[in-house]
């Protein structure tokens, strides 16, 4: 009996549920579509949506923190030290810019749009935009360069920074040599007798003197050397900047 009841109940339920389903689809036939005609109409992008990155190079200080934060290493940054004569200006957040950013590439083929590069930036110059349509026929076109320097400028800046570095290294070596000499002089001076001291000392120092004397004399010689080797312009300033250093030794 119950099986007969179930049989007819099944049939009744079948018809009833089909009618319910047809009612639902008929209702939806006349509800407006939820989809939009994409290239003609666009959905608003969420405020914190993560799309294509942008770097505002006016604010970039070349600190490399975004590249460090990137989990897929899609950001590559190269910098060159600026010369003390060059004023790179301030960032909008009030930080002084000290480095020429000679390369700032983001490869959007690699980028995973995680947004981890955004929070570390001290000047808030790297951020997500609302651009999400930037497909390319060639993958290499997805490697975006953000630097504001021209290729020629990049070359000169790098050269200049290298030269400055070489110079600094030379100066450091000279300073080290001078320091060593001074040390040697001191060790020679302090222990027992004067005649020994005079013998070991370099020519200008022969007059002998109190403790500070030997320090100043190698410094001057170094200065002259630098002036001879260094090329024209920036050199005197470098010296000025580094003036204190040998004295501190």
């Amino acid at each position, binding site marked *: 009996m119950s099986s007969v009841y179930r049989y007819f109940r099944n*049939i009744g339920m079948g018809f009833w549920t*089909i009618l319910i389903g047809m009612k639902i689809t008929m209702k*939806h036939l006349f*509800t407006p579509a939820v*989809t939009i005609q994409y290239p003609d109409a666009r959905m608003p992008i969420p405020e914190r949506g993560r799309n294509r990155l942008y770097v505002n190079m006016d604010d970039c200080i070349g600190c490399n923190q975004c590249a460090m934060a990137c989990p897929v290493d899609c950001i590559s940054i190269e910098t060159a030290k600026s010369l003390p004569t060059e004023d790179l200006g301030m960032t909008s957040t009030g930080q002084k810019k000290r480095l020429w950013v000679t390369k700032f590439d983001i490869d959007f083929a690699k980028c995973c749009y995680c947004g981890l590069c955004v929070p570390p930036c001290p000047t808030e110059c790297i951020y997500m935009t609302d651009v999400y349509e930037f497909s390319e026929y060639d993958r290499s076109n997805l490697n975006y360069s953000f630097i504001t320097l021209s290729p020629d400028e990049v070359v000169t800046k790098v050269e200049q920074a290298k030269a400055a570095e070489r110079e600094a290294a030379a100066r450091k070596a000279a300073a080290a040599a001078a320091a060593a000499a001074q040390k040697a002089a001191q060790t020679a001076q302090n222990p027992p007798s004067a005649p020994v001291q005079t013998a070991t000392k370099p020519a200008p120092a022969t007059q002998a003197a109190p403790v500070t004397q030997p320090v100043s004399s190698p410094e001057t010689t170094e200065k002259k050397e630098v002036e001879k080797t260094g090329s024209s312009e920036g050199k005197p300033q470098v010296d000025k900047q580094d003036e204190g250093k040998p004295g501190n030794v």
Partner: protein
Amino acid sequence: MHNFITYYLGSGFWGSLVSSVLPLVYIMPYALVTMWLELKISAHMQDRLGPMRTGKWHGWAQPLADVTKLLQKEDIIPTAADKVLYLLAPALVFVGSYAAYAAIPFSPAYIGSDINLGIFYIVAVSALVVLGILMAGWSSNNKWSLLGAMRTAAQLVSYEIPSSLAILAVVMVVGSFNLNDVCAAQSGWFWNWFVFGKFPFLFITFIIYFIASLAETNRAPFDIPEAESELVAGYHTEYSGMRFAFFYLAEYANMFVVAAVASVLFFGGWNSPFGAYLSGPVWGAFWLISKGMVLVFIQIWLRWTLPRFRVDQLMYLSWKILTPFALINIFAVGLWVVLRG
């Protein structure tokens, strides 16, 4: 005058030719319109827009674009296929669907062939479709095609029984197999139509016929022969280009055949719903086609409402529900005809 073409051109070669080509002239635009309707209806039932770009206005040219694409496509024949059967199958499937149009009375003045066994002929010739599908599935030499073809054969053979029994009930009431006679028996206002209670059991008959006819057109929820999530595309997996288009066209042609037969058997065919008003040869064609299109719309509506049957559920519905009900129904109708008729 049952066929105005043979009336004017004579029943010689030209008369027969024009008369037999006329349904094709109807099927082509009908198929295009229905393809577009199906795209749009399915889209809107799912809260989408569907094609919107082809031809500017709501993608009206989408079916034209589809057909043009199919015409240009390469006709691929698998090397392992049984070539003769493979090439013959789509033609046979379409012939099965198209031949049925010969006995459909489009209007009081046009029926391709005014034969006494009209509805019997339609049932018989529709069986060719099974043969064509079975050929397509077998000759493709592909497991999905074969599975799809076997399912189709099982399904169509099963559902032909309730469908034929439902047709038989109407035939008993009318006393004729000729579809023109069936139409004539329902003349007058729309309450004379067989669905509307002139004979109480004929509404059930209509439901049985409609469900069975859905199964015969291989459309959802009875689309297990081409269940795309299981069988890729079923029996026409290996077909491409024009041969695929033939299967597609046959499906749409078949949809209208069952809808037209249902409207002739239960909705008065070419009769106007308003008695003598708006009736005549041209209005007759209009009424039959609009009734058919309403039923085609219901087929589309159901397709996008219901999920697909499982194979066992399909067999359960046919053998344990529709067939017993059709048998009881035919007995009841027979009793009615004997006692009241």
